[in-house]
């Protein structure tokens, strides 16, 4: 089967900065694919190249088996991280313009716009100027603009950043619904927990390079059950006594402990029991965040703050 998106050996530099370096990955049809990594890892540059907005220096991108071109652009619905609309244009006219640019005929576009506006109970906004809409309302219009031409492939760059909680949920629903219809979705994020909930496959980016790619379940399984979730009450200094572990997500009565060098988890439990009252002790697969850190090595991560 032909992959909807196939990226091989992709490189792009801006001056002396290597934004993307020989990146390869492929997205399967009907799957949600997560492109992960801290800000500045090269996700947006990669996405722009897939969308034929900027040309790669090296490498190849194929969409449904074809080289990227104005033609492949029309097969993709793209919502960039930097998103917006013409403020002075009316909602209906704006959607019509964007849909026509994606190759729809005026009549076809009007029908689809009507459908989606009704679907989002936004039909009354048809003749409103975008500048008059609230932020949440214009975000909905933005979704419609992305999906109105009914493409087979959807690309969302940091889709949840800046969304209000209601629209965040709405977008999740849309993404799942599209996947269930057999559409292919690629989205990028620097927030790992979103991926855990939604993605089938992932690709981890760091410093312009792909560090890990594959099926999310499989990736996690390969890392083994070597993470301890512990809930306790009392003195938390025992956490500092542990060696050969990495502690993520530490708070006054909770910690996520990754066991690094064969240290027995029973031993951790023993040390903990001496100091504090244990409410919960669970052995789990590592979180994606942990997988990312252990793959690239703690010292090689740029923008550590942004990762969480």
């Amino acid at each position, binding site marked *: 089967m032909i992959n909807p998106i196939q990226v091989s050996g992709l490189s792009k530099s801006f001056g002396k900065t290597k934004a993307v370096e020989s990146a390869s990955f492929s997205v399967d049809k009907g799957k949600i694919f997560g492109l992960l990594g801290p800000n500045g890892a090269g996700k947006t540059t990669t996405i722009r190249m897939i969308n*034929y907005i*900027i040309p790669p220096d090296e490498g190849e991108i194929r969409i449904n088996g074809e080289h990227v071109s104005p033609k492949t*652009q029309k097969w993709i619905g793209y919502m960039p991280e930097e*998103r*917006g609309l*013409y403020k002075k244009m009316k909602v209906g006219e704006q959607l019509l313009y964007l849909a026509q640019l994606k190759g729809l005929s005026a009549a076809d576009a009007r029908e689809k716009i009507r459908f989606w506006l009704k679907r989002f109970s936004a039909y009354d906004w048809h003749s409103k100027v975008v500048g008059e809409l609230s932020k949440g309302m214009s975000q909905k219009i933005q979704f419609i603009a992305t999906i109105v031409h009914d493409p087979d492939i959807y690309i969302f760059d940091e889709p949840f950043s800046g969304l209000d909680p209601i629209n965040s949920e709405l977008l999740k629903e849309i993404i799942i619904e599209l996947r269930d219809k057999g559409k292919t979705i690629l989205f990028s994020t620097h927030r790992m927990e979103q991926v855990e909930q939604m993605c089938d496959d992932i690709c981890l980016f760091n410093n312009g390079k792909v560090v890990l790619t594959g099926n999310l379940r499989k990736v996690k399984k390969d890392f083994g059950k070597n993470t301890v979730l512990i809930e306790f009450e009392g003195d938390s200094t025992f956490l500092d006594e542990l060696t050969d572990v990495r502690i993520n997500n530490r708070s006054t009565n909770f910690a996520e402990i990754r066991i690094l060098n064969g240290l027995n988890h029973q031993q951790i439990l023993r040390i903990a029991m001496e100091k504090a009252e244990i409410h919960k002790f669970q052995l789990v697969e590592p979180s994606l965040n942990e997988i990312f850190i252990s793959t690239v090595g703690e010292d090689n991560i740029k923008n550590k703050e942004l990762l969480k």
Partner: protein
Amino acid sequence: MNWRQIFLVLKREYITRVRSKGFIWATILVPVGFAAFIGIMVFIAVWESDVAFELAIKDETGNIAESLRNLNERRYLDYSHIDVDSLRTMVQRELITGYVVITEENISDGRNPELIYSGSGGMEFILSVESDFRQVIREEKIRRADVSEEIQQIYESRISLETRRLTREGEEQDDDTIFLSFVGMILGIIIFVAIFSYGGYITRGVIEEKTNRIIEVIASSVKPIELLTGKMAGVGALAITQFGIWILAFMGLSAIAGPVAMSLMEPSQMAGDMAAVEAELPAIFNLPSLETSLIIYFILFFILGYLLYSSLFAAIGSAADSDTDTQQLMMPITIPIMIAYFIMFHTWRSPDSVLSIVSSIIPFFSPILMVTRIAITDVPFWQISLAIVLMMITFAGTMWLSSKIYKVGILSYGSTVGYKDLLKWIRQ
């Protein structure tokens, strides 16, 4: 290049702007302003001929009053038989504007005549009375000097320069150089203003797409060069629409201005010599007709100039994040237009000087200077063609340059861009 995409962009640029309040107001207000201007001129013309200043002439010499009445029957009244005290009373009661007593001394001793008047009438009135008296007294002196008729004629002759143009086809035409000089200057100024304002539309349009953050959505459907071309064509179509409306309004107003003014004149004047009435109207009502070729050249050079500069205006817009950012980047565009604008004031006076000829062929100056020259003088066809060809070549160059800058610029946010960055983008 996909023409469907370009057309869609063009349509959006055109329709959203043509419906904007600013555009509608500007399109209406310019002809309204022009009509108001003509209206004021008509008003002035009508009132000027309405107010008659009557001067009583108490002539003690016997000839002067009659000569003055021959010059202007309505202004000068022969009141030689009335005594000075009565004349004074008449002035005070505003029955007449004033009076002049002409005595022998005014003619033989060269004493200046004295005008006693109520003070109304202003400069123009005084100057015309002065010139009338100068003429009449001189004629009287010549007559008395008993010189031969030949010499009398020499003194009476008024020499001015009649100019007529001989065309290449051998026809003689009335020469309108002075009128056309003004036309040339006005057309030059119009193109100067138009390049800045429509160019400004483009810069702001590009910046708007960047600040609205819609540009990336658009870029995922349209190639930057298509977007740029569509934008320039859209605003260009807007410019042509606006100018079309203005030119039609201008022609319509000029056509009706004359008859309307005439109908406002008093019937008594109407009965008089039509030619005399027309002569009293300001020159604007007797516009020598503009040659069609001038209008065509104006439109052609306007379009070429617009294309040349608008691509650069778009490039500047793409490199800026806000209107204030553009100030500094705008310099390389502003300077050539300003230079052309200043040279125009020289070209206006001497359109065939070497400076005028050479600078009118330089592509960045042509749109302003060549039009000014074509309006005023007979520009050799090779100069016009050379200017057009050079502008087209330069346009290809600026378009290439601009599309390179534009392509990178529209996707770069946040950083202040300098000329160094622009050079880097061009080399990419």
